[in-house]
């Protein structure tokens, strides 16, 4: 055992979200990063704070004070510097849920969705052309350049159609497996933002619920 009388210092960086399974033991190690003298650190990390109880449901909250309290129980003289979050949100995952997300979708399903997107975007561009009156504009430009009028200026319109594909590939920076450069694509950025929003929202809801459960207990 360490000498508990000396003025040891411990820095705690409490995590924001911890994923856990039901009935899992939550040690300091799971909840927080600890910086301290190596031997002390090992002992502190082994301290048990709580267990994931069944009643908690989807989530529970452990406050930083509970963590500090748990450490103080073992090492009353220790100076604890707490940085990081005030609460840890325990995100409780049931096993079945995890597995569902990991399995890859069936081939036929992917093809079906792709087909919808394919036909849908084809319809969308046709509607767009009809909506903005692209035809007359093309006829006009054709007449200006060629000097003769043409009801179906395909010479202009076929390259135009290919250009749409090129423009979209430039914008999205990729076509199927091939990426043009290493920049993140706008879609990846959008995806990232969207996922962050969803996570943040569900977190906010979970912490709300967990706080309510906590209040109900006391």
């Amino acid at each position: 055992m360490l000498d508990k009388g000396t003025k040891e210092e411990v820095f705690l960086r409490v995590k924001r979200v911890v994923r856990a399974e039901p009935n899992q033991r939550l040690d300091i190690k799971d909840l927080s990063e600890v910086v301290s003298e190596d031997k002390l650190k090992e002992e502190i990390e082994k301290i048990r704070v709580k267990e994931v109880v069944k009643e908690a449901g989807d989530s529970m909250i452990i406050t930083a004070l509970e963590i500090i309290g748990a450490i103080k129980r073992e090492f009353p003289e220790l100076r604890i510097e707490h940085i990081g979050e005030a609460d840890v949100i325990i995100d409780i995952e049931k096993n079945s849920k995890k597995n569902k997300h990991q399995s890859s979708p069936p081939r036929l399903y992917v093809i079906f969705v792709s087909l919808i997107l394919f036909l849908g975007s084809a319809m969308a561009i046709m509607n767009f052309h009809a909506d903005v009156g692209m035809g007359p504009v093309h006829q006009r430009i054709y007449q200006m350049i060629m000097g003769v009028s043409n009801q179906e200026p395909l010479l202009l319109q076929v390259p135009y159609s290919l250009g749409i594909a090129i423009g979209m590939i430039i914008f999205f920076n990729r076509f199927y497996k091939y990426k043009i450069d290493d920049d993140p694509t706008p879609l990846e950025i959008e995806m990232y933002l969207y996922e962050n929003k969803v996570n943040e929202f569900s977190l906010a809801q979970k912490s709300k619920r967990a706080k309510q459960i906590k209040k109900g207990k006391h």
Partner: protein
Amino acid sequence: MKRIFLILLGLAEGVIVGMALVAFLMVLDVIPRLIRFTSTKSKIRLYQSVILIGALIGILIDFYDFALPNLFFLNELLVVLSGLFFGIFVGLVAGALTEVLKVLPILSRRLGLKDEMKLMLSAIILGKALGSLVYWLFPQIWS
């Protein structure tokens, strides 16, 4: 008196439409995207003037009837090239429209197809090109 009012009206209309055009281009993030793609940040001023000149030439084409002189195959080449460039521009705009950018992340999450984004994107791109081709090649379908 009526003439002065007409002049004022035309001017006001022009100012609003001009601002709307620029706002439209800005909102879609197309220009920053192109600048990043070509790493030509230093040429921003050039791009500004080019957009302005392009809009002005568009106005001229719209309001005045004129035709280029005939120069062998150059007219055909110009037609093909301008068609291609129109298409690239429209493709950039179509990609930037929210229908693709905002819908795909939600769709892929809902349907559990997060890893198939590449395929879905390719499907959309091909769909756009094919839809456009069908629209121009078979006008008898919807006339």
